[in-house]
């Protein structure tokens, strides 16, 4: 019995001492849920007025009982529907932490970051270097490591957040839909904070962060009329490329797809090619896999062979001709392979030109040839831009869905 009690005391003291709380308080801090303001999006920018300061924009959803009205620097509480629920708070400080705590002074509730869904870093801030901005979100106890990180392409995070709220759509929902629909296009994926931290800590890892872009529909905005919220939309537009912790530029959707192909993150998407008669054919990719093979001469790496397998189904055919004979199919296989090759060559060219290994070569070298990687990793920056890259694409078309031949096919008539 004494041993049992001793064992109990040891467990209890362990629970208390290792709870991860500050020494002065063993127990977690207490707050009633209705007194918290659940921040959903955290935007980080450089202050436009004071370059030394950081501007933080926080988006949250108003509760049913919460009256409309300004809750901070920017808001549009008078609008109807979804927009009427969206609130933003903006504050500046020397650090992200100081800015958030400053915003606490004007918030009617306690700011709570445990429900942040995405962190958006402004273009200018990202070009300056992202490490100082993400330190707080990596370190903070409330924030989760599975937050999504995005870059506001060509704008500030504040602008993006505020304009998105004006569009009447919930930005967290929009981003969530982007993530769910990734499989249909495989252009820009998502990046979790913990993945970003891993990449920043890793060696020679090119980093690509999904970019969000504000797109204005041409109908009203070009006529100089009043900007309605339906005229503004947020688009997921390729990746922002980070080198040395700084944003160096963006790649478009096609190159983003190629990055995903090389990193084996491509799920599905359309490849539009021409049939032997010059009409468009949509090939829906159902499998895309890349295998990287490295050729060495002694300890020196000579070249990389990219073996890509692409299998697809015919999703759409514009001609009314039979394109399912052997010759036509082989033509389509070739067209598909060429389309993939073109994309991959383009991104290889971009990566080597900017000397940023977003292709995952360094990572796979480390995994496949760890001893050799140890010897060449210090020189990787000089090796990578000149590395010979060969591509072999094995292309096949497998199915045609519900119908094989097009309607009103010429030969049948």
């Amino acid at each position, binding site marked *: *019995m004494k041993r*049992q009690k001793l064992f*109990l005391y040891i*467990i*209890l003291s362990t*629970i*208390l001492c290792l*709870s991860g709380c500050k020494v002065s308080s*063993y*127990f*977690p*801090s*207490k*707050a*009633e*849920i*209705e007194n*918290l303001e*659940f921040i*959903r999006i955290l935007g980080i920018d450089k202050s436009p007025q004071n370059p030394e300061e950081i501007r933080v924009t926080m988006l949250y*959803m108003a*509760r*049913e*009982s919460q009256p409309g009205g300004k809750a901070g620097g920017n808001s549009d509480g008078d609008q109807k529907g979804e927009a009427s629920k969206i609130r933003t708070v903006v504050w500046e400080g020397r650090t992200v932490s100081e800015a958030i705590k400053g915003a606490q002074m004007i918030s009617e509730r306690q700011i*709570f970051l*445990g*429900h942040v*869904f995405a962190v958006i870093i402004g273009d200018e801030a990202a070009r300056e270097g992202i490490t100082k901005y993400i330190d707080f979100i990596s370190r903070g106890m*409330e924030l*989760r490591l599975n937050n999504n990180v995005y870059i506001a392409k060509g704008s500030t995070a504040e602008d993006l957040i505020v304009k998105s709220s004006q569009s009447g759509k919930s930005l*967290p929902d929009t981003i969530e839909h982007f993530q769910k629909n990734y499989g249909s296009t495989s252009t820009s994926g998502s990046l979790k904070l913990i993945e970003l931290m891993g990449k920043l800590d890793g060696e020679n890892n090119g980093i690509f962060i999904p970019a969000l872009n504000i797109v204005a529909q041409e109908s009203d905005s070009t006529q100089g009329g009043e900007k309605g919220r339906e005229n503004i939309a947020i688009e997921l537009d390729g990746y922002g490329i980070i080198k040395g912790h700084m944003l160096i530029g963006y790649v478009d959707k096609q190159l983003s797809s190629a990055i995903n192909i090389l990193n084996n993150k491509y799920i599905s998407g359309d490849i539009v090619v021409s049939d032997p008669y010059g009409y468009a054919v949509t090939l829906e990719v159902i499998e895309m896999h890349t295998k990287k093979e490295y050729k060495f001469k002694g300890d020196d790496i000579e070249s990389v062979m990219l073996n890509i397998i692409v299998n697809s189904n015919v999703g759409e055919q514009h001609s009314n001709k039979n394109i399912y004979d052997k010759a036509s199919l082989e033509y389509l296989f070739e067209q598909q392979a060429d389309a993939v090759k073109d994309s991959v060559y383009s991104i290889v060219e971009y990566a080597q030109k900017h000397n940023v290994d977003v292709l995952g070569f360094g990572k796979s070298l480390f995994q496949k040839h760890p001893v050799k990687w140890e010897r060449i990793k210090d020189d990787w920056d000089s090796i990578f831009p000149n590395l010979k890259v060969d591509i072999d694409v094995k292309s096949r078309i497998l199915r045609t869905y519900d119908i094989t031949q097009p309607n009103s096919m010429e030969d049948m008539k």
Partner: protein
Amino acid sequence: MYFKKLFKRKEKTKGTITTAHIKDILDESDDIVFSDFHIGANDRVQMALLYVDGMVETKLINDFVLKPLLTERWFTEAVSSKDVVTLIEEGKLYFASHRLIQDIGDCINDVIMGNVAIIFDDINIAITFDVKGFDKRSISEPSGENVLKGAKDTFIEVLRTNTALVRRKISTPKLRIKQVVVGRQTLTHIAIVYIEGLTNKNLVDEVIKRIEGLDIDEVVSIGYIEEYIVDNKITAFPLIASTERTDKFCANIISGRVGVLIDGLPIGLIIPGVLNQFLQAPEDYSQNFLVSSLIRLMRFLLMILTLLLPSIYVSIVTFHQEMIPTDLAIAIAGSKEGVPFPSFFEILIMLIAFEILIEAGIRLPKTIGNAVSILGALVVGEAAVSAKIVSPGVVIVVALAGISTFTMPNQDFSNALRLWRFLLTIFSSIAGLVGLSIGSLLLLFHLCTIETFGIPYLTPFVSHGGKSFMDTLFRLPLYLNKYRPDELKVENKRKQR
């Protein structure tokens, strides 16, 4: 024979058997009936008839005791009391059970138990006849342990009927029913039921020893036995299982447990009772094993739910809001707007209200009980939410926890869970999930320290694993379950080929 059962405890009364003596002891009571008779040749033999009015069948006395004594030739020719006693002993008075008594204490005890005594003053001898005839409730359907497919008979308040019910179900000649008398004032008969050559002898001896050792005034409810004989008295958890169902009682006897039946109580006790037993229902064995296994697993999950749900709610709403899905967190926060109390207090109010409703439902007659339930549900559920005294989330949490409690097959066990639910909620309100962990650990520690008649309470989860697991979280097919529970250390482990 009933009279041959050993009375371990009896009223200590001294003196020879005479009508005067007995009158001295009993004459204050108006329900004691004395009648003097003269029988034999020339009415030479004087005897007195003694019984307790209301406890005997007078027709039996008239037809099978008095009539033969007054009319049969053997008795009318008898010349002395000694002759009459000899004739009765020889079986001339054809009554199935009679007993010759020379001790006044035995005589009075027999009369009080519902026998009739013929007292012969001159030779200081009494003969008692079993003519019990008091009113008793008929065997009815179970009220608290209903099953769809299963026996419908339950124990009643008469010990002998209950032992007969058990005997009908367990017909083996090895079934033993040992009786002891407990209670200085109530002289309650308690039957200890087991199977010779199967039940662990040590367990039987220990149960008999503990019950015989009781020196209390009365046994009017099972608590008078249960609380005195269990090992660990400071616990809310039941250490002895109780049932009103005869099939459940008998199944446990056959498994190697010891049963206890108390005269005057329609409930059988099963010794020992471990946690696993309280999560098993008789119906588990009359349904398909896959269905039973699923239900039993669900019962275990519901036990955890009823115990932890309110405390988890308090923890995550007050301390760990990041754990709640965002939309739900916003909905909860919105619904709590305007409620002046902290979440812990809300839960406490609702838990107490729930307990009040249960208590009211039990005490009130059935017709009013329903009205109270409706009123309670309306007031507590609807009005309290509308009046912003509690939030809807709290009502849902407490209702879920409450309904889960009702799925527990044993009421005593569910009461223990209700008590610990309060304690864990208090722990959670102090330190969130850390507090809940500490509280749960204390509960686990408490359960680990409990033993019932030498068997760990958490058996077979903490000891005697292996084969015993077949009948725990899942109910495996009966043909696979070939052995009796290991922990009972039965003398015959295998129950089927």
